[in-house]
């Protein structure tokens, strides 16, 4: 199988869907002539022209809204946020228009739109540019929320997101755009809403998504090696709707859970996971569920401080030991 970077997988997903359906178009800051701030859209302007690869001014509310309005007319916009940090100025469009219009119009209109771009901390960008929007958007009914960690998942899920008749938030990661992995040449789709066991295991269920997937996999490695603990690493892939079934099945097998989360703790996706797990598998839990999150602070620029604020494999390993009562 050929290997691709995540940015290439995303590009191929967009390209294939744009070839397949001429109602699909890409819009955002620097997506065209500049070839994308992170080069996800490289070559697309040349292939599809300015009509379908649309550079915008810095107007996140404006072009998010234009996307929603165009989707209501039957187009299939892919809106790139240069990073999701900048979606904060478009929050109302997502909360009140994208998520609600189908319901609010009694089903007369649908909003088949994808908002995509990098999310969560990158490297030393400071507090305003290092935020995870997972919890904000997963909280909102009417949206689907996807978060990808491999080229394979990125391509398969982005294609599904583009074809989805509902508004989809699609999280990528600046730090992971260059990660390589195998991607089949044939067309494939990955359904939204299915978690994926990235590493099977027996002793502890280790939940992760997006940037925390490599952290979790490294932690599972450490746990196997140093603590003789077998962690089952489940990549949620979709945050809304959650694949509760897959999660609970694993918990009922391992009886212990650690959540590795690139995001602030209060009311994070991990909090929701804990709630569901204790509700649906209370009698199976042998230890409190442990969460390893971002520090509950705005991020600092300084390298050492940023590093300390982000869950590292060692921190997750410690949590795995803790829920297994190894200390």
């Amino acid at each position: 199988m050929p290997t691709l970077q995540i940015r290439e997988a995303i590009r191929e997903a967009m390209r294939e869907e744009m070839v397949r359906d001429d109602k699909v178009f890409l819009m955002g800051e620097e997506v065209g002539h500049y070839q994308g701030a992170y080069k996800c859209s490289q070559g697309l302007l040349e292939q599809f022209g300015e009509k379908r690869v649309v550079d915008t001014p810095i107007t996140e509310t404006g072009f998010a809204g234009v996307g929603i309005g165009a989707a209501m007319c039957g187009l299939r916009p892919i809106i790139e946020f240069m990073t999701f940090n900048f979606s904060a100025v478009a929050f109302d469009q997502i909360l009140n228009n994208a998520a609600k219009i189908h319901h609010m119009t009694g089903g007369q209109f649908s909003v088949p739109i994808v908002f995509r771009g990098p999310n969560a901390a990158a490297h030393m960008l400071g507090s305003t540019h290092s935020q995870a929007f997972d919890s904000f958007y997963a909280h909102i009914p009417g949206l689907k929320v996807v978060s990808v960690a491999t080229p394979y998942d990125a391509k398969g899920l982005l294609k599904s997101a583009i074809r989805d008749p509902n508004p989809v938030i699609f999280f990528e990661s600046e730090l992971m755009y260059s990660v390589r992995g195998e991607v089949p040449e044939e067309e494939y789709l990955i359904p939204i809403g299915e978690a994926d066991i990235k590493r099977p295991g027996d002793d502890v269920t280790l939940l992760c998504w997006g940037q925390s997937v490599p952290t979790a996999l490294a932690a599972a490695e450490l746990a196997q090696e140093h603590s003789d603990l077998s962690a089952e690493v489940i990549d949620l892939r979709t945050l809304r709707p959650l694949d509760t079934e897959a999660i609970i099945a694993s918990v009922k097998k391992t009886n212990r859970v650690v959540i590795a989360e690139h995001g602030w703790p209060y009311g994070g996706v991990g909090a929701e996971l804990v709630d569901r797990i204790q509700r649906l598998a209370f009698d199976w839990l042998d230890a409190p569920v442990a969460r390893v999150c971002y520090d509950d602070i705005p991020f600092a620029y300084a390298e050492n401080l940023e590093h300390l604020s982000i869950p590292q494999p060692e921190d997750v390993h410690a949590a795995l030991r803790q829920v297994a009562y190894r200390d």
Partner: protein
Amino acid sequence: MDLPDKDAPLPETLSSAGKDETLHAYREMLRIRRFEETAARAYTRGKISGFLHLYIGQEAIAVGTSLAMQPGDRIVSTYRDHGFALAQGCDANACMAEMFGKKTGLVGGVGGSMHFFERDKGMWGGYAIVGNHIPIAAGHAFASKYLGDGAVTICFLGDGAVGIGPTHEGMTLAGLWDLPVVFVVENNRYSMGTPLERTLPAADITSRAPGYGMVGDRFTVEDPFQVRDRIGAAIRRAREESQPTLVEILTYRFRGHSMSDPAKYRGKGELEAFRASDPFERANRALLELHGMTEEQLEAIDDEVIAEMDAAAEFADQSPQPDPDYRFENIMIEGEG
């Protein structure tokens, strides 16, 4: 505030209109007014809840706009949306039932007064967060240009919506990309209880048009035909040249901002002066004075319209509530869609 001259002669656009079209426009304005009066009573009796914003005084704008539109064109409006829905031909029963929160409502009772939508009638909503529909309307126009469907989007906003960011962004994109859209500011002098001197740094809203790369057009509403012609020109500019326009229409609302607003903030004599130049009353005068109709004939029309609206209220009242599970419908579409 400059008050209108109550002794002004009938405007040329109105006096030169034929009897049939005058009667039609009059009747449409009357329908909106009686619909809203009926709704106001239903609100007082607790049959309608939430926010109810009346359009009374501004009817000529919705009616005139609809006269200028072609099939496929779209109206996008604020929460003050009843007039547009009726002018576009939405069924009064369904509109009233929507406000009663009933299953038979325009959107099944989920929207209420602020969220009227009927796609097939060109009634594309009904938005209640001030300004957040401007980018949406620009998006419809973007799609029209993309698809080449020739449709024009006419987007209404209040004088109070001019300062907010989403309005600015939507207009910036429409101007930059030459989108086939007409933005119409209905300047009814107030944003809730605040007169526009306290919300606008520059009184002439069309002074912003050049910054958006748009043509501006500013006028005081006189009658539906004047509105039809002026907005019609902007619609043509959108359809034929794909150029957006920023229209500002000076108008006035006779009721409070919403049902809970006693409107104590009006200046002395202000309401009376505007009442005396009410476009609806002018059309009434035109029918009497120019087209030889009698008071009795007009009263008979009024009775008909009142009966229509009473029937709508009755229909709404008798309609069942939505099924409990309806609230879970239309959240997510299954399949590829």
